[in-house]
């Protein structure tokens, strides 16, 4: 039976023996792709799932594509990485990170759906994958190079010509190979897609990420540090293969429908449309572009690129928070807007080159500044640091800080293993109570959407493995707030908005708009628990396994359509429609949610083995002990709420705190709905077996960590 949508093989890399083997994808088909596929592979190949530090040699990392990569499904071109992470607190969970670009698409054309990375090489290696031919190379000469240099040198070593004035690259080793139909590897114009670590990964830091091309980084979770611990510098993939799809006609038709119905007309666009998938290709950077000489730059298959490549030679392909991690300090020294932009984009480049996660800077940089101001951090201080703090705000300081964090120098020596760990070591645990150190969950910084306000974000993060970074519902806030800020009429009124979204929250919250009430009275309710469940399951399958991009999906509402309904769950361009057209499956939208539930339960089983218990599922103390104040982030924080008369309004929800006791009740409610033991948060046998995971239940039972059934 044809395995539509899949390359059909999974590559296993045994770094210890420097051996590559293949396994068939078919066995794992029911897990979809991406994260689901990764969790199933991790479960099978990680022999010690109790590990809490990603540097343990038993750790297994999976880099996975999706059947949708490279098949023109709109904005489904990303790749997923899973494994036990690094630098989190108190444990580094089995977790995930994602990155864009062209790696997933090219991996599949090279013949593989995923790569399983096991063991540890005795010395640095990089892996060369060409049309299922796998070669391990000595990476000693690459060790110590930044991510761009590493990729360029690998291209040079492979004989890949630079620039774009290049021809076809024949992948055959000889003319004879090309002439033989049985061996002809074919030609490509593409350059190999490379995933690599920089110094931050080589030095096994918790901030170490995996970088692809100029600006795609799987940054959160420390997987770069894990690769560094395995002496794995890079993986390069190139291929000339093809992916069979079940219904190419349906694919092409759905893409046309999407463009005509859901996307703003290119000729007369609605620049202020309320939609995710229907936006024009607007650069998603926190600083203005340094020039108007740039193109939008997109991941493969994306319907609206969010990055850029500039003429100025810096800042290319980098977007969002990375472009502004140094915003606050740079404002102190910049003399002009142009200088401010250049400092920030070059600081972004430094982070990409070192391959380091810049999320620490959202709140961590302010914390460091606080310590300097307090007089406890600096030359000769209690926390010694010889960084040039007098040049704070300059590009020079930014680069030195990135270097220190990446190379375990200066304060980087302590911060490399985790920021919250460093805070404890430095005797600064109190900062987690006051909020000076706003790291809200699992040793990770507050993303900006405070758990006390945007509850589905905070709950999803603390009940899972990391800051979720999933803007599914967050778009509500930005649409409403922007309209409010401009004193413009709301494009969609609150009651209609929640109604449209609730139509799509199938099955748990279908047509239950009350789950979208962000008001104080509702924030610990079973309603919100159902919302969080839906969110976890939707993202586990559709966004992390099928790999629909967070920036463009879900498209709940869309003012480009006559009825304001978005593409999500629609019959003509919904997530399941694309999946079925590619794979030949006959999934309903709800079926995808159920697959996500299965994946989520497998993940919880892994966390349970790692040591998860509800007693450690808690936010940082400041979330409970302080209030989210007006003006702290934005002067107003508008979300849909029901007023005292039960009418839907958009209301400012600033000023809240999280009640610890009520959060405990919320956890109980959530666990009960998920079919987990409410005393521990562990999955039960009934729940696992109901998902076809009997073997998982057996493993938990043998470990003494199987959830008790509800009486």
């Amino acid at each position, binding site marked *: 039976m044809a395995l539509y949508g899949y390359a059909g093989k999974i590559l296993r890399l045994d770094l210890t023996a420097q051996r590559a083997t293949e396994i068939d994808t078919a066995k794992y088909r029911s897990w979809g792709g991406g994260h689901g596929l990764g969790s199933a592979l991790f479960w099978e190949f990680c022999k010690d799932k109790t590990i809490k530090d990603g540097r343990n040699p038993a750790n297994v990392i999976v880099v996975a594509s999706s059947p949708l990569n*490279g098949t*023109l499904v709109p904005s489904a071109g990303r790749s997923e990485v899973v494994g036990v992470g690094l630098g989190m607190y108190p444990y580094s969970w089995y977790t995930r990170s994602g990155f864009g670009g062209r790696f997933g698409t090219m991996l599949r*054309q090279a013949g593989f759906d995923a790569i399983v990375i096991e063991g540890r090489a005795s010395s640095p290696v990089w892996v060369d994958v060409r049309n299922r031919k796998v070669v391990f190379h000595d990476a000693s000469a690459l060790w110590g190079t930044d991510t*761009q240099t590493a*990729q360029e040198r690998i291209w040079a070593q492979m*004989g890949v010509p*630079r*620039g*774009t*004035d290049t*021809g*076809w*690259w024949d992948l055959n080793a*000889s*003319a004879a*190979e*090309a002439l033989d*139909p049985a061996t002809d590897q*074919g*030609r*490509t114009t*593409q*350059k190999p897609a490379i995933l690599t670590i920089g110094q931050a990964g080589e030095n096994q830091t918790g901030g170490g990420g995996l970088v692809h091309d*100029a600006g795609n980084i799987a940054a959160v979770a420390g997987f770069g540090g894990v690769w560094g611990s395995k002496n794995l510098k890079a993986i390069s993939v190139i291929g*000339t293969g*093809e*992916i*069979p*799809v079940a219904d*190419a*006609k349906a*694919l*092409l*038709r759905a893409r*046309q429908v999407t*463009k005509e119905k859901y*996307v703003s007309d*290119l*000729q007369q*666009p609605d620049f202020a449309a309320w939609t995710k998938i229907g936006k*024009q*290709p*607007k650069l998603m950077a926190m600083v203005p*572009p340094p020039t*108007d*000489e*740039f*193109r*939008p*730059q*997109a991941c*493969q*298959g*994306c*319907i*609206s690129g969010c990055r850029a*490549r500039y*003429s100025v*030679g810096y800042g*290319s392909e980098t977007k969002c928070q990375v472009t502004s991690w140094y915003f606050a300090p740079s404002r102190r020294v910049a003399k002009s807007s142009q200088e401010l932009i250049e400092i920030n984009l070059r600081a972004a480049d430094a982070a990409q080159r070192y391959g380091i996660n810049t999320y620490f800077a959202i709140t961590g940089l302010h914390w460091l500044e606080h310590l300097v101001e307090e007089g406890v951090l600096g030359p000769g201080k209690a926390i010694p640091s010889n960084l040039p703090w007098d040049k704070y705000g300059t590009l020079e300081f930014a680069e030195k800080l990135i270097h220190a964090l990446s190379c375990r120098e200066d304060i980087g020596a302590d911060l490399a293993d985790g920021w919250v760990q460093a805070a404890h070591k430095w005797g600064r645990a109190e900062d987690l109570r006051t909020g000076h150190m706003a790291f809200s969950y699992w040793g990770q910084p507050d993303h900006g959407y405070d758990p006390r306000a945007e509850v589905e974000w905070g709950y999803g993060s603390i009940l899972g493995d990391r800051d979720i970074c999933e803007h599914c519902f967050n778009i509500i806030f930005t649409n409403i707030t922007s309209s409010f800020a401009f004193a413009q009429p709301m494009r969609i009124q609150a009651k209609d908005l929640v109604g449209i979204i609730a139509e799509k929250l199938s099955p748990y919250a279908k047509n239950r708009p009350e789950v979208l009430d962000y008001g104080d009275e509702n924030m610990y309710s079973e309603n919100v628990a159902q919302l969080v469940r839906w969110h976890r399951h939707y993202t586990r399958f559709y966004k992390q396994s099928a790999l629909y991009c967070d920036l463009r999906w879900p498209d709940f509402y869309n003012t480009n359509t006559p009825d304001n309904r978005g593409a999500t769950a629609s019959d003509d361009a919904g997530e399941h429609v694309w999946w079925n057209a590619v794979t030949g499956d006959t999934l309903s939208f709800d079926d995808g949610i159920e697959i996500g539930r299965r994946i989520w339960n497998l993940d919880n089983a892994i966390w349970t083995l790692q040591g998860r218990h509800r007693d450690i599922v808690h936010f940082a103390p400041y979330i409970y002990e302080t209030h989210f104040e007006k003006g702290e982030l934005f002067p107003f924080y508008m979300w849909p709420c029901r007023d005292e008369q039960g009418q839907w309004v958009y209301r400012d929800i600033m000023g809240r705190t999280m009640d610890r006791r009520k959060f405990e009740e919320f956890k109980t409610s959530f666990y009960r709905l998920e079919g987990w033991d409410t005393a521990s948060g562990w999955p039960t046998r009934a729940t696992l077996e109901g998902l076809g995971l009997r073997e998982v239940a057996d493993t938990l039972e043998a470990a003494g960590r199987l959830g008790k059934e509800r009486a």
Partner: protein
Amino acid sequence: MAQDPARSEGASRRAFLAASAATGCAVFAGPGVLLADGRFVIPNSAGFLVVDTKKCQGCGTCMMACSLAHTGRASYTLSRIQVLQDSFARWPDDLALAQCRQCQNAPCVEVCPTGANHADAKFGHVRRIDQSLCIGCKSCVAACPFTPDRVQWDHGGRKAQKCDLCAETPYLDAPGGPDGVQACVRVCPVGAIAFVREMPDQTREDSYQANLRDWVWKRLGMTMEK
């Protein structure tokens, strides 16, 4: 990197035509005419693709759409339009689009020994390779003067293929060809590919570059300059 063995001179058909022309005859060579002065002339294509490489977002959707529309499979190697990128280069030199130019005096048509590669009168004289006649000699691949050459080698099917302006696209639910839809034009999210009727200047390599950026582009923060 292995040399492409197909890059060799000579096609017996060309030699025959040249010899015949030397007798002072204008030889009708199937779909083309070899004039006495040596020029090989075929009817012009009724349409051409022009591209704006400063506008392209490098998403590769055109490549996916092309291979899917023609073969039902997603493959960059089988795409008849190619997008080449260098992630570390500066705009505008970081990206190139390589579409078939439907050349007026198409060398790939001229060299084909079987007439598989021909100006198809049924589809506005688009230069198209009839797969049933292609013997996989790769002469057309070698003959294309552009880099990358605009003829693709299907290493699985052992045939050459090229852009036919979607004349033969069994997976597109609309008629293709010069009078119909081109999958790449239709699918491009930013409108970086356009179909035109007027033949671009055949003496200039850059004549297939167009400025397709407008006020919307400028409003999005990007230059409209040529």
